């Protein structure tokens, strides 16, 4: 059926969304007039862009929420304090304590709580009307976060075991001897030290990017089919908008899940770096 519908739609006037739609010009400039600079052979915009403002906005929002929630602390919590405590307790008990273990976890709770809500709020910017741009659909933002987590877990591991002991813990699998080590040590080093931050960043970035791209596609495609075609195809435009709403609901789930997964993996890497030698 779709093949028949496809032949009836003239595709000349429709430009499908691409990665370029995520490269927003700086605030106050349009695409042509924005100042640019060269970095690693690529032309980049020079100025403050929308995702940068969103990062700052998210920090203000999170700080305000937790400040208000913890201002009038009482034995019997009020509504706001209860919500704040539940949110904090979810990360503290459900993520940090369960993965890192009750001995060491308190040191990392501030970082993990901040990380979780920072990612959560920035992801949900993708669905809030008026903003509608998930901050981490720009890869650079996700790389910076993953680099921070990478530094944290390597640093605590090296402080506990020493540099040599930590590298041994991460790269030498227990119970393996002889020639196999020659093969396994570089592989483990590659996987545990080099690839981990990259997959951590790419997972967050690609989920936000792909989800937002899907939303743009259904919105633009629906608009095009509904307004610029004739015959039966506007019906497909309505269907496209229904899909848009469905994908929005799916995105709500994915956004919360990706914040959870990022913090879960970070705390697991920390737990792995702190583990005693076996």
């Amino acid at each position, binding site marked *: 059926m779709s093949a028949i519908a496809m032949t009836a739609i003239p595709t000349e006037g429709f430009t*499908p969304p691409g990665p370029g739609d995520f490269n927003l010009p700086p605030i106050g400039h349009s695409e042509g007039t924005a100042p640019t600079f060269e970095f690693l052979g690529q032309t980049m915009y020079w100025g403050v862009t929308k995702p940068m403002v969103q990062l700052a906005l998210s920090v203000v929002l999170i700080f305000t929420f937790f400040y208000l929630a913890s201002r009038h602390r009482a034995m019997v919590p009020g509504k706001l304090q209860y919500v704040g405590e539940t949110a904090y307790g979810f990360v503290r008990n459900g993520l940090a304590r*369960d993965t890192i273990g009750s001995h060491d976890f308190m040191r990392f709770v501030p970082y993990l709580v901040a990380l979780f809500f920072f990612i959560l709020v920035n992801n949900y910017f993708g669905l809030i009307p008026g903003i509608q741009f998930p901050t981490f659909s720009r890869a650079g933002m996700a790389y910076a976060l993953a680099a921070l987590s990478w530094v944290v877990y390597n640093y605590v591991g090296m402080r506990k075991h020493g540099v040599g002991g930590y590298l041994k813990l991460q790269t030498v699998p227990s119970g393996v001897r002889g020639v196999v080590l020659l093969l396994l040590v570089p592989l483990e080093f590659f996987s545990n030290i080099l690839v981990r931050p990259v997959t951590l960043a790419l*997972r967050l970035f*690609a989920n936000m*990017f792909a989800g937002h791209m899907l939303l743009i596609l259904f919105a633009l495609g629906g608009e095009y089919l509904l307004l610029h075609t004739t015959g039966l195809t506007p019906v497909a435009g309505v269907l496209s908008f229904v899909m848009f709403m469905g994908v929005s609901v799916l995105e709500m789930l994915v956004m919360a*899940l990706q914040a*959870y*997964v990022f913090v*879960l993996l970070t705390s697991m890497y920390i737990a792995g770096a702190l583990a005693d030698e076996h």
Partner: protein
Amino acid sequence: MDGSLNMLGYGLATVGPGLAVGLIFAAYINGVARQPEAQGRLQPIAILGFALAEALAIIGIALAFVL
């Protein structure tokens, strides 16, 4: 119509991670159905497995744009 062959290849490549994610959650649902009180322990494991299997699809989409 024009488009990138990379994206077609990526679409085919998602079959693998898709099956993997399905299998992981099938095992999780099975586990919870047999022993509902184990849900708290199984959930982080299931989500971790999901994230690791999904990483393949993620690397795929990155390569589809880069290559």
